[in-house]
């Protein structure tokens, strides 16, 4: 219908024509460079998180450089997911859970008192372990959901949805059935649909909580390739149980244990020449 849509495969690289209005938190801080369409560095300082009485994250410091993939590895219960859920303030949605400390996107602290959490979550998108498309919505509506749910007006919703679907490599597979339910896709396609939904809101940072652990190897490969492309425009923080996956996609890797960051370094170094003995034992499979 729209001729250039099917031919222009590099739409990702084009400057974004349709952008959601900058959330008010950024307007207030008045930094024009903040919406360059590039990712932003995430800086975590002194983060403590609790589930009721349980002190699960203990004074974590973490730096995720812009436009890089930072992987969090560690045994179950080490607090990887909790840390990333603190970055977009989803942690506090769990009854009884709270977090203290500072999480900065450049110089914006998402834990400032007068910050609107919905604005934070628009800046920091999240992809979950199990694909969770909205079952009542079509493929198209699922991708558009982020904009509609945040009340963002877009001049060209269709184009944005199409571009997001192309961006995750789903366009060719679904272009003829955009109005069929999103839940009818395969698991891997559903997960890419969820990534398209996240990308459509045009966040700065994308958090991924074991995004491929429920998928088959081929779908996993597609997600990994996608992550590699996405880091051109977004800062990516990914939790993974799969160390090979971390080794393949991450620029730097963080090893966590019992709610603390044990070691953070370039991925190659973490896997081949770790400084801490516990990291060495974990990556070589001696525990965890």
């Amino acid at each position: 219908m729209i001729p250039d849509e099917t031919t222009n495969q590099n739409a990702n690289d084009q400057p974004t024509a349709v952008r959601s209005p900058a959330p008010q938190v950024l307007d207030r801080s008045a930094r024009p460079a903040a919406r360059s369409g590039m990712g932003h560095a995430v800086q975590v300082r002194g983060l403590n998180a609790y589930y009721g009485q349980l002190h699960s994250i203990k004074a974590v410091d973490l730096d995720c450089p812009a436009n890089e993939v930072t992987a969090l590895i560690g045994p179950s219960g080490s607090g990887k997911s909790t840390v990333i859920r603190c970055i977009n303030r989803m942690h506090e949605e769990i009854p009884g859970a709270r977090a203290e400390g500072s999480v900065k996107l450049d110089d914006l602290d998402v834990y400032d008192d007068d910050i609107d959490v919905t604005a934070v979550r628009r800046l920091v998108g999240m992809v979950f372990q199990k694909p969770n498309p909205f079952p009542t919505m079509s493929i198209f509506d699922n991708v558009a959901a982020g904009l509609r749910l945040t009340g963002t007006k877009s001049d060209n919703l269709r184009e944005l949805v199409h571009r997001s679907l192309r961006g995750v490599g789903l366009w060719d597979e679904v272009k003829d059935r955009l109005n069929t339910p999103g839940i009818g896709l395969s698991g891997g396609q559903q997960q890419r649909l969820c990534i398209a939904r996240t990308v459509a809101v045009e966040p700065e940072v994308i958090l991924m909580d074991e995004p491929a652990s429920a998928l088959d190897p081929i779908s996993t490969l597609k997600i990994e390739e996608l992550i590699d492309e996405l880091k051109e425009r977004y800062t990516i923080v990914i939790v993974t149980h799969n160390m090979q996956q971390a080794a393949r996609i991450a620029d730097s890797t963080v090893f966590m244990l019992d709610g603390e960051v044990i070691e953070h370094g370039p991925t190659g170094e973490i896997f081949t020449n770790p400084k801490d003995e516990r990291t060495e034992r974990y990556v070589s499979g001696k525990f965890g």
Partner: protein
Amino acid sequence: MTISGLPAISARRRRTDQLVRGSLLAGFVLALIPLVLVIYYLIYKGISTWSWKFFSTDPNGNFLGYPGGIRSALLGSIEIVALATLISIPIGIGVALYLVEYGKDSPFASFVRYLTDVQTGVPSIVFGLFVYIVLVEAKVGGTGFAAWKGAVALALLMFPVASRSAEVVLLLVPASLREAALALGAPRWRVVVRVVLPTARSGLVTGSLLAVARGMGETAPLLFTTAGAFALTFNLNGQMNAMPLQIYNDILSPRTEVVNRAWGTALVLVALILILNLIARAVSRRSTA
């Protein structure tokens, strides 16, 4: 290699199995007997009164000749229950939304949950008397008995049913969908309106229909509130006929024709409730397909 030497099922286990199965079946049949008898007897006594005239005329109160049909009772029931539904279902779903989305396990939410449970167990006549004292005796709205007051009494009865069933359905909406929507930066009210409610829609409809069916057959709340009348009326601020009232009045009559009209009305009422239940089941089945 073969496996051999497994002991055969002992005769005692076989006997126990048959005994328990048999007693379960007997219990099922026993429970079914009254239902089948009621429906059989209703059809036997009531079906002969059904005719076009039965549905198209109002009761006339004449001492001789045809005593009239049930048009005013049928339409009156529908009017009153419709109003009661408009009052109770939105409040019921609203309360359920509060409990599931906002209150959760807070002390206040637990208290509200407890109160709704208590309200489920209040005998229907108590609601009738309550509305009688508060609205009828006080002549609120300028009249004593009025259809809308009956609807209020029914709504009090239907509200906890609607609320509890809605709560169960809303709890079935996967938390992952709420998380997905919240993580996109949606405010909570939009998550509720655009994700939770659409996902739970068919279950909410089913629960509401069951609440409606519950309200349809109640006599006691109407007895002290709408009083009843013969003529067809659409004035909700006046007395109004309704099927349970019609049955209640007719069954005491010395005239056989009038008593038969009660049977016919009862059959209509049961058929209506049955249809509502079937619709509710059809709706909930479509959602799982």
